[in-house]
Structures are given as structure tokens and as C-alpha cells.
């Protein structure tokens, strides 16, 4: 049942749609050893900075290294936690305010496991994966996003 595929790209061009997420949930309904799913979604905020509002983030990445890091995070999470499945998707390119740029999905027989695993994975992504975000304001000026 372990869904441990060989290394593949987690990047998707543009926003991650709610249909994609719903469909991903649907596909797990044949895996009847799963008792608990936990999903994290990162959504682009229309932050106001010095009177200007963020209208989108343009994501770029050092893709080869990023995919390697995603792979390491995945291997390490499967080692630490009793997970049945794990899926990670991250946007590249333009994602508008209100749209989803990160989708992390973990499943396990038991709920305690998914809470721990999901937080571990999301924090590792924020800390270790070379992804860069250019916050585009409504007047087309920009600033570079930094994870806090």
C-alpha cells in the first residue's frame, strides 16, 4: 500500500485548483486502510505593504535541487511516520492572491500520525527547498518574499 514512487517533480505550472485537490482526495477512497487524512494548503495573501496590495506571487525555483530536497523530505517522513501516502505539489509561475500555491497531503491509518507528519513536512519545505517568490503589487512593482 505504501505509495513510494521514484523521484518526480512536485512542481506544477500556475495555481493548484480546488478541483485538483478534490480529485486527489477522491483517488484515496479505494485505500481502505486509511483512517485519517491531513491536508495543508498555502494560499497567496493579498498583503498590504506600504499602502500597496499584493496581487500575485511569481514563483521560481532551483528546480533540480528543489526536487532533490522534496525527495529527501519525502523519504525522511516515510521513515519517521507510519504513513500510507504522501503527496506534495508546489506552484511555479504566477499564482494570484486567493489561489493555492502549495498542497501537502498525508494519509495514515491513525490520526495522531498525520498531524505530526504534516507539520514536519510543511516546516521542512519552508526551510529547505530553494523556491523563490516575487510579490507583484497592483502597480506592477515588486518585492521578494521571505519565509518567516
Amino acid at each position: 500500500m505504501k505509495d513510494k514512487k521514484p523521484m518526480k517533480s512536485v512542481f506544477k505550472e500556475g495555481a493548484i485548483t480546488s478541483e485538483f485537490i478534490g480529485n486527489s482526495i477522491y483517488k484515496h477512497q479505494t485505500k481502505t486502510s486509511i483512517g485519517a487524512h491531513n491536508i495543508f494548503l498555502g494560499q497567496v495573501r493579498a498583503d498590504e505593504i506600504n499602502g500597496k496590495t499584493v496581487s500575485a506571487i511569481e514563483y521560481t525555483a532551483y528546480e533540480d535541487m528543489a526536487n532533490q530536497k522534496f525527495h529527501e523530505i519525502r523519504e525522511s517522513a516515510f521513515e519517521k511516520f507510519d504513513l500510507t501516502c504522501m503527496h506534495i505539489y508546489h506552484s511555479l509561475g504566477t499564482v494570484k492572491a486567493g489561489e493555492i500555491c502549495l498542497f501537502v497531503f498525508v494519509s495514515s491509518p491513525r490520526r495522531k500520525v498525520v498531524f505530526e507528519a504534516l507539520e514536519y513536512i510543511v516546516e521542512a519545505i519552508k526551510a529547505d527547498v530553494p523556491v523563490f517568490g516575487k510579490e507583484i503589487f497592483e502597480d506592477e512593482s515588486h518585492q521578494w518574499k521571505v519565509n518567516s
Partner: protein
Amino acid sequence: MNITIKYFGQLTDITHLEEETLEFGGTYVYELLETLYRKYNTLKTKNFQVAQNQELVNENTKITGHEIALLPPFAGG
């Protein structure tokens, strides 16, 4: 030797390119950085890490000829 250097995020606002190949005569990462600081004045004021062969390295690491990347703070998710 010839070294390919990749620039990401806000560093591209300074370099105005994402990748370049340089002839490099030194041995260590810090020597390469000195070369780059001479070429790009404001690069020194920026916060970034260096990756060689897709692994983070420090200034005293030897240059092996693999791809070098300059990585500003990450902003995934």
C-alpha cells in the same frame, strides 16, 4: 576552469541574468565570491547561500567544477 553560476530570486535584480559561465582561476568558494563581488557591486549587501552540485556549501569549500548556485532566502509555500 569554467564554472557555471546560477542566480535566483532577488539576486537576478542585480545580475540581470539567471546563469553565466565564468573562467575561474582560484580554489575556494570565497575566492569565487570575491570575483563576483567585483563584477556585481551590490551583491555583497545581499543575504544568500551558495550551493555546489545542489548541496549547500560554506565559503571555505573547494570549487569542484560542478554547477554553483547563489540562493537568496527561500520563500516556498
